[in-house]
């Protein structure tokens, strides 16, 4: 197998699980024949070929087999049937700092961990200064790792793996490393590795990170490859699959609310262009938010607040309106407020709407609903990212050249 290539042919991996696992000899003899082992196929008939220099994303839900596939490629476990072949040195960042010994200094751990990852001592010595500088641990490298913060440990773990000069780099959800500046640095390092012709297999829940790094992605569903192609398409298929699965009851289950209760949000719904209730929209479609609210007698017209966040809890938009200006009438009855958007300016993803009722000044909280509504936006044609631009392209009229 040429360096940097990965070939997975019809690989399946079974895990034997017993209702009560035989962890002791007693269990082994007593349970023998009594509890039938259950076979769980973490991967079924998976074939993937990765050429040198490719960056391939693995996406799928929890339990879809991503990590199993990564461990097969890393050689940590073997396929039950089928074949997995790889060429060259594999650097695996399945867990940063795995195998660090807390009683040893950072320096000693660099050598130990490097050796475990397959480096010779001379090679580690050559790269030692670079590794320490990258991890920004010059001042702490001779201290015991037990005195490190978790961020420092992970930085050191990443730095060792990053300087392995592997042919293939396996990454499993590793971008939770340190602060944002360090994350950018890690990403930069990985990008550099890719530019230099290294092969990357990247597992992440963070679709944006996969899109930045990988042109191609494999979507796994219950252990099978359900899509293998451009990352954009894989990600949007993945989102669609997630959306189809969301149980209507789940909306209520995640509901969190608090507040003093003088005014309450009674109900909230989203409507499509035809006035029908929906939770899935196409980018650019008409979109209506309808909120039914009630206030006790004597409560001044409240202010309605809304916050829109994406799956990563980033604030996408925030709005508020004084209901008094809309003609809110004082009284113990319920009133319905509508918020209409002619063309939804969101591109794609899952969004969470948080609604709140406060007094006019915004200081007193009457009622606050987290995840009041969760909805999905599918890209209409070419949109990517979170936001959809409303704009038009044109070619400027030619100015005559003098």
């Amino acid at each position, binding site marked *: 197998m040429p360096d940097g290539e990965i070939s997975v042919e019809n690989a399946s991996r079974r*895990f034997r699980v017993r209702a009560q696992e*035989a*962890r*002791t*000899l*007693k269990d*082994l003899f007593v349970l023998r024949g009594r509890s039938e082992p259950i076979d769980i196929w973490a991967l079924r008939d998976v074939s993937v070929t990765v050429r040198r220099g490719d960056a391939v994303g693995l996406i799928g839900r929890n339990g879809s087999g991503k990590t199993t596939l990564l*461990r097969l490629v*890393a*050689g*940590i*476990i*073997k396929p039950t049937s089928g074949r997995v072949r790889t060429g060259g040195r*594999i650097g*695996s960042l*399945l*867990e940063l700092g*795995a*195998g660090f*010994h807390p*009683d*040893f200094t950072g320096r000693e751990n660099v*050598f*130990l961990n490097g*050796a*475990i*990852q*397959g480096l*010779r*001592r001379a090679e580690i010595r050559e790269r030692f200064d670079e590794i320490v500088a990258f991890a920004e641990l010059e001042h702490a490298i001779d201290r015991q790792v037990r005195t490190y913060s978790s961020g420092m440990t992970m930085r050191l773990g990443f730095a060792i793996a990053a300087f392995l000069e592997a042919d293939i780099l396996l990454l499993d959800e590793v971008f939770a490393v340190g602060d944002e500046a360090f994350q950018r640095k890690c990403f930069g390092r990985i990008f550099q590795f890719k530019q230099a012709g290294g092969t990357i297999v990247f597992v992440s829940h963070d679709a944006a990170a996969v899109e930045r790094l990988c042109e191609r992605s494999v979507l796994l569903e219950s252990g099978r490859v359900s899509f293998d192609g451009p990352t954009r398409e894989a990600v949007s298929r993945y989102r669609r699959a997630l959306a189809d699965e969301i149980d209507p009851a789940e909306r209520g289950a995640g509901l969190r609310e608090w507040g003093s209760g003088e005014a309450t949000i009674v109900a909230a719904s989203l409507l499509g262009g035809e006035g029908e209730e929906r939770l899935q929209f196409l980018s650019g479609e008409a979109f209506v938010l309808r909120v039914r609210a009630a206030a006790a007698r004597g409560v001044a017209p409240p202010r309605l607040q809304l916050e829109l966040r994406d799956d990563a809890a980033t604030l996408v938009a925030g709005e508020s309106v004084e209901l008094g200006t809309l003609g809110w009438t004082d009284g113990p009855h319920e009133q319905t407020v509508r918020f209409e958007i002619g063309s939804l300016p969101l591109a794609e993803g899952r969004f969470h709407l948080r609604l709140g009722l406060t007094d006019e000044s915004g200081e007193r909280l009457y009622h606050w609903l987290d995840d009041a509504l969760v909805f999905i936006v599918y890209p209409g044609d070419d949109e990517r990212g979170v936001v959809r631009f409303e704009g038009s392209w044109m070619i400027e009229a030619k100015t005559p050249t003098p």
Partner: protein
Amino acid sequence: MTVYTDLFHYRELFGSLFRRDLRAKYKGSFLGLAWTLANPLILMAVYVAVFSLLWKASVANVDRYWLFLLCGLPAWVFFATSLQSSSRSLVENANLIRKVRFPRQLVPLAVVGTQLVAFVVMLGVVMVLALVFLPGSRGTVWLALPLGGLFVLLVSGVSLALASLNALYRDVEHLIAALLLPWFFLTPVLYGLDQLPGADSHPELEFAVHWLNFLTPPIEALRAPLFFGTAPPAADTIYTAVAAVVALALGAFVFSRSDDRIAVEV
């Protein structure tokens, strides 16, 4: 066979693991590595003090009982400590084994390596004592080295097999802990098999202690050149060599059969 040839290919990693285990054991202690030497010496001193000086135990036809005792002790201590520490080794390194690919058999073998240091110290001390106190042994003491080497192979194989099994069934290590003490008394360390007072009335018992306990032949073989100044008995020597080969094969077999499951189950 790659189970053991990897030891050569990955000798640097083996060295790193070995140093880690050796130093981790005494990390933070004042004497540090000196404990590796102090432990076996203290143990030997205690055995001599209790069994020879206080108890005045003796064995038929043996003058220096204390040295007789010391000649059998290193092999037993090496065996017992290796089994105990290596059986836990794969489980203790679970974090590493689940996340990184490397030849996993190096983990228990490196642990045996750390115990080997103490074995070498003890055997060295015994050889020196034999040279000093037993003029009759001066020509044969060196034979302890090849025999000791065979014994190391035997212990390595058994340790690898038990470490692999313990990764799958956690009470192997407890079973070992429970068996070691009775096993000690069934092994002729404190006594010799020659002219045992009860051997005539219970020949089958003596036979069992000699040939069913695979530790007896190597210990008998080691004691012959060290203490008695004779060549090791042929039967014991052949037994030891065969046992070493069988143990290595068994270790490799059990390990290869369970290697894949180890990564899943530890």
